[in-house]
């Protein structure tokens, strides 16, 4: 069976490829060229030429064909432009969700068809299992610290059936150890932690350059009192404390970002907690549920799933949490789990 392996140049995807080769599969490696890295900190993050070269060296070491495919246009229109729109609209986007679903997985499946590959493998920490009736179920990776199922909630059934995750049962430490054992050239390379397309993590600067904006505005408290000034609403996300420049007094955090007024509303820690969230742009892994059900919901990647009652609505769903959750942020993905299984998800309104 011919397997298309997506390779970013990072340790995870390189080890995934090495494991598949060890199992005797016929591999084709692909690295997407998604973005042109600029700025000082070019090495060791996605999309620097060095990363494409790391993928190529792994393929050469193991002995399978490797191609670099230019998807910069798709990345720009499906990930970067919506990212900028979201920040300017006062929300905080989850670009890794958009990228995984609309660029990576979509384009990989299309490539698999054109290359005559039956399945696509990636280095995600996630699992796919077949249930008795043959449907594919998306599950959390065994290493809950690294679990990346959050980013894959919207992948449709017919695609899930063709995905393989060789690292799904491994921990990160075990992955590196396997990399060393299999002689993967970049097994010791550090992970990239930040957004792959924002140089030096400076989102505010990125938004200003890309959209040619620079908008100072007001910071107000919940009563509407003016308490300070901000340098652009796109520099803030719900729950953020730094960058407000508010001086002494009790710690204050961003509660809401109001693009219409170009205003950031701040409050105290207690004000950040909410019992429910509503989502739109929903995708369900199986048939759309009609009745409310009990589940666990993550409202951002770095969030342990919290018990909630999920109520399907016309637009998506409402999640009513058993305990109040801190800093629920419009623009982030809310992903619904039943135990380890991903049921679906949507974008927080």
């Amino acid at each position: 069976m011919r397997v298309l392996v997506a390779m970013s140049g990072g340790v995870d995807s390189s080890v995934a490829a090495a494991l598949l080769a060890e199992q005797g599969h016929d591999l084709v490696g692909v690295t997407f060229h998604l973005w042109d890295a600029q700025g000082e900190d070019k090495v060791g993050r996605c999309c620097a030429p060095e990363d494409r070269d790391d993928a190529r060296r792994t393929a050469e070491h193991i002995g399978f064909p490797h191609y670099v495919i230019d998807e910069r246009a798709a990345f720009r229109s499906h990930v970067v432009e919506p990212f900028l729109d979201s920040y300017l609209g006062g929300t905080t986007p989850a670009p890794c969700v958009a990228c995984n679903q609309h660029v990576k997985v979509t384009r990989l499946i299309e490539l698999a068809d054109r290359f005559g590959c039956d399945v696509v493998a990636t280095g995600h920490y996630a699992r796919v299992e077949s249930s008795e009736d043959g449907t594919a179920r998306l599950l959390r990776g065994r290493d809950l610290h690294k679990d990346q199922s959050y980013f894959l909630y919207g992948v449709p059934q017919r695609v899930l059936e063709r995905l393989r995750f060789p690292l799904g049962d491994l921990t990160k430490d075990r992955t590196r150890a396997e990399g060393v054992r299999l002689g993967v050239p970049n097994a010791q390379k550090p992970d990239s932690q930040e957004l792959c397309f924002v140089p030096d993590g400076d989102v505010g600067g990125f938004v200003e350059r890309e959209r040619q904006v620079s908008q100072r505005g007001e910071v107000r408290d919940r009563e509407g009192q003016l308490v300070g000034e901000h340098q652009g609403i796109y520099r803030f996300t719900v729950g953020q404390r730094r960058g407000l420049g508010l001086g002494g007094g009790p710690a204050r955090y961003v509660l809401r970002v109001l693009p219409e007024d170009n205003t950031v509303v701040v409050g105290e820690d207690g004000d950040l907690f909410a019992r429910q969230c509503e989502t739109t742009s929903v995708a369900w892994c199986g048939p759309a549920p009609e009745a409310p059900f009990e589940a666990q919901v993550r409202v951002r990647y770095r969030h342990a799933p919290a018990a909630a009652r999920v109520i399907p609505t016309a637009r998506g769903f409402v999640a009513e949490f058993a305990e109040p959750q801190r800093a629920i942020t419009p623009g982030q993905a809310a992903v619904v789990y039943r135990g380890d299984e991903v049921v679906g998800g949507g974008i927080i309104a």
Partner: protein
Amino acid sequence: MRQASEAAWANPSSIHRAGRAAKALVERARVAVAGSIGAQAADVIFAGGGTEACNLAVLGLAHDLPPDSEILTTEVEHPAVERALQSLQARGVRLRRLPLPGGRAPAREVFAGWLEERTRLAVIQWVNHETGSILPVEAYAQACAERGIPLVVDASQAYGKLPVDVARLGASAVVLTSSKIGGPTGASALWLERCRELAPLIHGGAQERGRRPGTPDVLALVGFGAAAAQVPARLTAMQGLAPLRDSLEQAAQAAGGHVNGAAGPRVATVTNVSFRGWRGEILVAALDLEGLCASSGAACSSGLGAPSPVLTAMYPEAPWRAESALRLSLGPTTQPHEITHASEILRRVLARAPAP
């Protein structure tokens, strides 16, 4: 080349025995290259790869052009010529580019109409590197000579496919490359009309009479010379290629392809076909997986990620052609069974995603 590596490892500029042996081999190669184009060895300058020879010809002849000069070229030149010419624009030199719609080159009278008072140099390819389109460079050379305008002919893709004779051609400079005639990469030649001045690109010793200093790659030049000696046999073999190319081209068309560059005469060694709904680089990869090696655009520009500028120029109203082009090349050793096999691979791969 193997023999040369044992006998001639030394620096050909050295006057000791080993150096003289190396020099003899270089000069023998020069005679072979010159002989293959009806030229004198003294007028052949050796350089590194074809890109270097193109740069040497363009920049070497344009070095003292006055700022308001014009240079006439085409819209479909190889990047080694196009980019070298573009670098002159910083000095105020203006470039004018002849179009080749659908691959059809303008006739002599039209070409002559593009030569202005301010035209000081013309740089034209003989055969296009992507479609194989043939340009009437002999006729262009006559038009240039009548007006005293030097013409550089990039013969990289013509050499070994069409007979090249510098006297008949009538140009001022001709670029030849080794790798296009079955020789090693990294060796090329610039034939230059006697007494035409050339500013060197590289500064150093006195090799090549100061026009291209630097210790040469003796082994590559030996290989170039050996390939040059085979050019007559190669030209003979070329005659049998047209039916093979046509058969392959028909198979590509049957699989949904649209031929590029067929509006004018072409050499028989290449077919350039576009497949709507496929991206060129993806089609190349898919074919590679099945054992068929092909190109999309020029190999030199495949790292650039942009659709073929040659096809964009030849078909401005059909950008899908440039985005989805596939180039397949044949050579003197190509056999009918290879054409059959390649046709079958094309059919099978293209069936995976039929045209929209």
